[in-house]
Structures are given as C-alpha cells and as structure tokens.
C-alpha cells in the first residue's frame, strides 16, 4: 500500500469540480484508491462518494492506493491535486 497526507486548501473544500477531477484521475488506475478524512473514507473513483464526505478547507486527508500500479497512482493523484490548487 502506498499513501500520502495533505491539507485541503481550496477555499470551498473538496467540492464538485475538484472531486470530478480526482475521480477521473483515479479511474485511470487499476489499484483500489481511497480518500480518508477523519474517520470517514471514500472510493476516490466515485465522485458521489467523495462529495458525500463534504471535506472542508483546512481538513487533513489521506489518499491510499493498493494494487499493481499503486505507486504511479499516488504520484499522479498528488500531482493532480497540486496542479488544480486542491492542496
């Protein structure tokens, strides 16, 4: 399993647009990818799952990937979060 932690800096939090960007990015990989926030977790490939967490700005999140391409997935997702000013 590979993972990283980050603080959400988008002023509205993990709202529809970033959730959509992330679910698209995650869907490119075969690994199981989870986004955790507090004691809740979501399948990062599912925009509905991610939005259901209602992650606020300033929250700490953890992204975990498990599978054959877990390392590539984590690198790509972290990069995509930075590129889109989500973290």
């Amino acid at each position, binding site marked *: 399993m590979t993972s990283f932690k980050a603080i959400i*800096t988008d*002023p*509205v*939090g993990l*709202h*529809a*647009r970033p*959730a*959509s960007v992330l*679910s*698209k990015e995650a*869907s490119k990989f075969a690994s199981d990818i989870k986004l955790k926030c*507090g004691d809740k977790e979501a*399948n990062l*490939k*599912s*925009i*509905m*799952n991610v*939005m*259901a967490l*209602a992650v*606020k*700005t*300033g929250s700490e999140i953890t992204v975990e990937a498990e599978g054959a391409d877990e390392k590539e997935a984590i690198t790509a997702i972290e990069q995509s979060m930075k590129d889109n000013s989500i973290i």
Partner: protein
Amino acid sequence: MANKMMGIGASAGVAVAKVYILDEQPIVIPQDTAKDVTAELANVSQAITKAKADLENLQKIAQEKLGAEKAAIFEAHASILEDPALTEEFETLIKTQSYNGAKAIGEVAEKYIAMFSAMEDDYFRERAADVKDVTDRLIRYILNLPVADLASIAEEVIIVAEDLTPSQTAQLNPAYVKGFACNVGGRTSHAAIMARSLEIPAVLGLKTILSAVSATDVLAMDGATGEIEINPQKTDVWTKKAETFKKEKAELEQFKTKKTVTKDGFDGFVLEGNIGSPKDVAAVLENGGEGIGLFRSEFLYMDNDHFPTEEEQFEAYKQVVTDMQGKVTIIRTLDIGGDKKLSYFKFPEEMNPFLGYRAIRFTLDRKDIFKDQIRALLRASAFGPVGIMFPMIATVDEFKTAKQFTLDCKAELEKAGVAVGKDLQIGMMVEIPAAAVLADQFAKYADFFSVGTNDLIQYSMAADRMSEHVTYLYQPYNPAILKLLKLTIDGAHKHGKWAGMCGEMAGEPEAVPLLMGLGLDAYSMSATSITKARSIMAKLTRKETAELANKALECDTTDEVLALVHKLMQTK
C-alpha cells in the same frame, strides 16, 4: 384570472415577449419488475451513453456562454454519470431485486439527494439539485420521455416553467430567451444565480404562473421588482420601463471605475462591500468597492465540525487582506448565538437568545476560543490594513476589556517576533441602543464605529425581526433610528474617529441621502449595490442632504421621512 402577478425579483431587467411553456411531462416511475435483466441493463447503459453525449454538448455551450468555471459543473455532472459506485448500486438492484432500470436509478438517486439535502454546508446541500438533474435525465431516456431542448429556441421568448435545472439554465441563449418566470425558487436558488450571470431577467417563486398562461400569451416582466403582467394592455408603460432600465444600467456601469465624489466635490465618503467568505472579494473589487466594511467571520465556524484553529483562520483572513491589495478590510469577530448555532457546541437554552449569551458576550467568556481568532487577525494584519471590530458591545467596560485583550495578544506576538500590521484599527459595532446613546464616551476608546442596522432596529423597536406579526416595526427610517445614528456619528466625529454602517440600510437608495446628511463616513453594502450608491452621491451636495437630515430628525413618522427623501430625489 387577474393578469398581474408578483413574484420574487431574482435577476434585474425588463422583458416583454411571447411565452414559451416548459411543461415537462412529470416522471412517473413504473413499479413493475424487470422481466429480462440483461435487456434492462442494456437499456440503462444506452441511457447513460445518450445522457453523456448531452452533457458534453451542454458543457460546450456553457463554456462559450458562461466561461470555463461555470461550465465545469457539467464536467461534474458527467462524472456522476460515470461514477462506478453509482453504476454498481443500480446494477445490483436490477440483478438481485429485479428492479426495472428507472426504479433502480430513482431509488439510488433518492438516497443521495436525501443525503446531500441533509448536509449543513450550503454548498454541499445544493448538490442535491445536481444529482436530481443528472438522474432525471437518465430516467427520462429510459422511459422514452422527451428531454427539453432549450438550446434550439430560435425566437424571442420568455420561458415559463415550474423550475429550471442547472442544465436547462445553461442552455438558454440570451439572444432569444429574454427572461424566465418560474413557480418555485428564490434569490439564492441556482436558477437565480445563473440568470444573473447570463444577465437574463428572472422572476421566481410565482407559485401559479404555469397554470395562468397559455402558449399564445405575451408576458411582460420586471426582474427587479418581481412584477409580471400577462398580455399587458398598456405596452408603452413597459417600453418605458425597459428604456429606463437600460439607461440606468449603462449609467451604473461607468460608476464601477469612478471615484466616490458628491456633486459639491467632496470625496471623503467611502463605499465598501460586505463579504461572508474569501471568495466574495472578487465581486467587491469588480463593482468598485473601496474596501471591505464587514467580513463576517462566522463562515469559518459554521461550516465546520470544530472551532477553527488559529492557523485555519489566519489563512482565510490573510487571503482576503492580500486580495484587497492595500484597501482596508474590517473583520468582525465571532458573532454567534441568537439564531446562529454551531453543530459542535451547545449554547445554553435561553428564553430570549437574541438578548442572551452571544457574540462578544460569548467570546469574552471563552477567551480560549477568542484568543485563536484575535491572534489570527493580528497576524493577517501584517499583510495589509485591517480593522478588527467587536459585535454586540453594550458597555464601555466590555469594549475596553476586548480591546485590552487584543493589545495583550499583540504584545505577545511582537515579543515572539511575529509581524503585526502598523495600520491596525480596533473598533466596534453599534447595534445596541445603549452604545449609540453613549457613542461620545465609546469614541474615546474605539478607533471606529460600524452600525449594524438590523439589530439596532430590532433592539430599538423591541421587535423580533423574525416575527412576521411585528414586521411593521422594522422601520429603518423611523426618526428614532435616525436620532440614534446621529448620536453615533456625532460621537465619533467629536473625537476625530470615523463612523460607518455595514447593515442592509447602507446600500438602500432611499437611505443614502439621509446618511450623507447625517455625515456617515463609510457605507458597506452588498457588492452589487455599490455603483447605485455612488451614482446617488454624485447627484447630491452635502448642503442639501444636511438640510434633508435635519428636517427628517424633526419628523413624527417613517412615512414623513420617506416623503422628504422622495421629494428631494424627484428633482435629481
């Protein structure tokens, strides 16, 4: 049936055009079980493909008309369609419970709609409408019901509908769609926000408009007042309204970049914006705001599951102060209690919460919470001019205690080598009559006053503004209120301090002449009211407004005061 109706004016503008009735066949989901599961799954998958093509097209249309940011919502809609968790849920219901496709999607959609609707944060709550929009489209395709194609409208019309979904609103072409009128909705609904960004007049919340019109009718509407007339008799009245609107809009546009100057050349009045979160700054600057007169810090506390840390607050304040590029930002410390509650803190039960444990009373009692906020505010003040103001101050002692606490925090930060702004001002809200009456004494200690009109009126008239039985007592123009404003402003000026207002009243066209006459220095309002206030100031001299204010202070009633204002403005 009467041919005139009143709704909620949701997007300004005047329109007269033929009606276009968007009367969609309601969705009735069949309850029968699926006979052929494979065929049902294929049907669902086909509907997803059709809906996806629609959304790609909609995104293109929206991108051209509304820009990439607003069009991104359709990307999110497309992601909902492709959501593997959702698809799995539909499919499981079809495979294991033999649900038909429409029923399976309907049930899953309902679950998510209920979940989003129950969320505390406004933003996430509104996402329920997005889920409904996407899943309704899918169900319509499965059931072979027509899906409205508003993008193909090619003649001038006013759309009449029960409601408009985000995807429907994005299809509207302002070249042909002159306005829309809906049974439901209000000023903050999705349709209203989209209408304003497309600059299409809209009247919402009409309740019965759909049944009141037929396809051959002509509709006239005023999106500012909410007035609707079906088959107007006197069309010249509406033509005149439309011309006035157009003229005024062009006139106000130029005031976005002009300085605030009165007719007699005085440039000491400042027009500012009220904001509720960092994302509102752009609108204030776009509309020519000369500062932020009220930044409500509550959003940091209310959209949260814990008291925000010093660091979380610092980031938000710093962002606003930096974005304001040297213009002043006045931030109000936590104003919670009364009708504003927190999910993670239980306020005591009180008979009169508005007169109870709230605002400065709460923070002075909970210095641990107050300290995080004050330190964050002081640190943000290193990035530009900041004013800190305390809400609900009733006594001089309260203000002195809050100010001393702030100065102690400042000394502590400076000792630790943390930068604090040089232009820091410490002021207070005037919203309790006792503070207005004693303004002269308060001004010895406060750098500035900012009048919160809603509370000042409610406490002065002893009338709960939430109670519909006593709304007639909400009287901003009552001479009693004007006298309290005069005491506040004169008190500040006597000690060389300034007085502002950050309540609803500051931006009202009828209030501006009176407030000018009373000598109010700073006027903070919703961003969209700034240009109007500036245009009014440009038409008036201080001498004539001072005469108006003096006469108004001698009036017996609100109506007499308003009559004086109207008389003066008619000559402008």
